[in-house]
């Protein structure tokens, strides 16, 4: 199994979820995060004090899939999350040693 971690633009979360659903992947865990990279932040100003906020809001989606589905899932995410502008984000794929479903104790592919 592999864990796909995708850092995406927050407003793309819906599209990505649906793209995954279309290929049969229904489990997702999402975390709000802040990204720093090529995409610029913005400036705020309070009583003349300028503040450059470099971190940009992103969402980190974690999707665990069978290794053979990783490619398909990755393509689906890329397609759904892409806007073509800087800051679209990255996908990181980790090897996973084991998966367990807490409710039933099932493991690995049965647990997904």
């Amino acid at each position, binding site marked *: 199994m592999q864990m796909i971690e995708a850092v995406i633009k927050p407003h793309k979360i819906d599209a990505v979820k649906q793209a995954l659903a279309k290929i049969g992947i229904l489990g997702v865990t999402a975390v709000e995060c802040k990204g720093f990279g090529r995409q610029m*932040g913005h400036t705020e100003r309070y009583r003349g004090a300028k503040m450059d906020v470099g971190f940009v*809001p992103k969402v980190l989606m974690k999707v665990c899939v069978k290794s053979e589905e990783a490619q398909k899932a990755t393509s689906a995410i890329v397609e759904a999350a892409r806007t073509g502008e800087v800051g679209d984000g990255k996908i990181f794929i980790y090897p996973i040693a084991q998966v367990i479903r807490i409710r039933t104790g099932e493991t690995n592919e049965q647990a997904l």
Partner: protein
Amino acid sequence: MNRASLARYGALVAFFGLGVSTTHAAEPVQILDPSHINTGDTAWMLTSTALVLMMTGPGLALFYGGLVRRKNVLATMMHCFILMALVSVLWAIVGYSLAFDVGNPFIGGFRFAFLRNVGAAPAEYAPTIPHTTWMAFQMMFAVITPALICGAYAERMKFSAMLAFSTLWLLVVYCPLAHMVWGKGGLFNSSMGGAIPAIDFAGGTVVHISSGVSALVCALVLGRRRGYRTHPMPPHSVVLSVIGAAMLWVGWFGFNAGSALHANALASAALINTHFAAAAGALGWTFIEWIKGGKPTVLGAISGAVAGLVVITPASGFTLPIWAMVMGFTGGVICFFAATTLKHAAGYDDSLDAFGVHGVGGTLGAILTGVFAVAAVNLPVGFGNTTRLGLIEGNTTTVLHQLIATGAAWAMAAVGSVVILMIVKPIFGLRVDEEDEYAGLDLSQHGESGYNIEDAFSATYAGGGATLLSGNERDSAALVGSTHG
């Protein structure tokens, strides 16, 4: 209603339609002797003035601010706040004069421009309080009315366009309407020589219909928010809205009971009518929502209270508590349908239901005022010597006049708003561009965030991503890039 009066209406309606100004020369507004000033009345009116200001800020600012998404909270509160500033100055320069100087039945003159002749001595509008107090009390009405409209264009209008729109709207829609209904010699004035006496105790037509209908026009002309009906747009903090609604309720005592212009039994009657209508409105909306949708929502209860307050406004000094409750309850129920079924069926995006509550509720109130007005409570001079005022007392004229006044207010608000938007659009543009709408108006229009509370240790944390560039250090405009990531 005899034939003569019918003819008179016809003539005047035509008149109005053509926009031809009447040549009727009314007496100027009388300035009375300062010795008539009563301290009790003055105390109440100063208090009412404060209460009505409190309705706009913080009341309405909170009510509306809580209903928008987090990224637009400051911009929405700013609409209310900046109007407290802008309208006040306009009012001093010319607004008050256009509304309350004698002119023709449609608009006042310039005798009070720059507040000339507005001093300690009472005007005949309010014989027992200083003229300045009356002017100030009325100013607070002028402040809140355009602020109500922002419920329709919230979350997408450019700040500059909003300022321009509000300025023109005040002068072109509000002042004439206030003059027609409350100004001496105004077309619908029921106590100072109006040709078609209609009753509007505290602003059903002048405040609520005018703002509500203009709100509808704004919603239609500006178009929907991006993502409307595909993305949910839940209120970011109903908590703020509850606070705001409660302050509106309290402030409305100044609005309606203050409109008695005295600290007397009429003020007291207006106060209890106001209160009972708000109570019944809250129950009405909650009730219908509970039986229709399954759950009595908090947003429903506060919306219903506001709807009840809107509906009772024109009738508050003319009816009895029992009818006030009926009006309030009806308002709660009808506005529920306006803000839910009607809006969704028609498809326009009246973001915060300014039309659904103020337009629909105001119209309902104006008409029901003609139904439930009771001569024994308050009989304006313009109705002559009669014991029957409302339809329930058997008087059909009043309702007719109410309908005419309502129609006039609708027409003026609708036409006026369309024209103003057409003028403002090419100059400033009405809507922010797409990126700015996604990023939110707080950042794009004002360069601020409503909340910086991501972390209990936000300052140190934010330090990770932000650099302070104050004073005359480099202007990093270049860094201000896309923010809607």
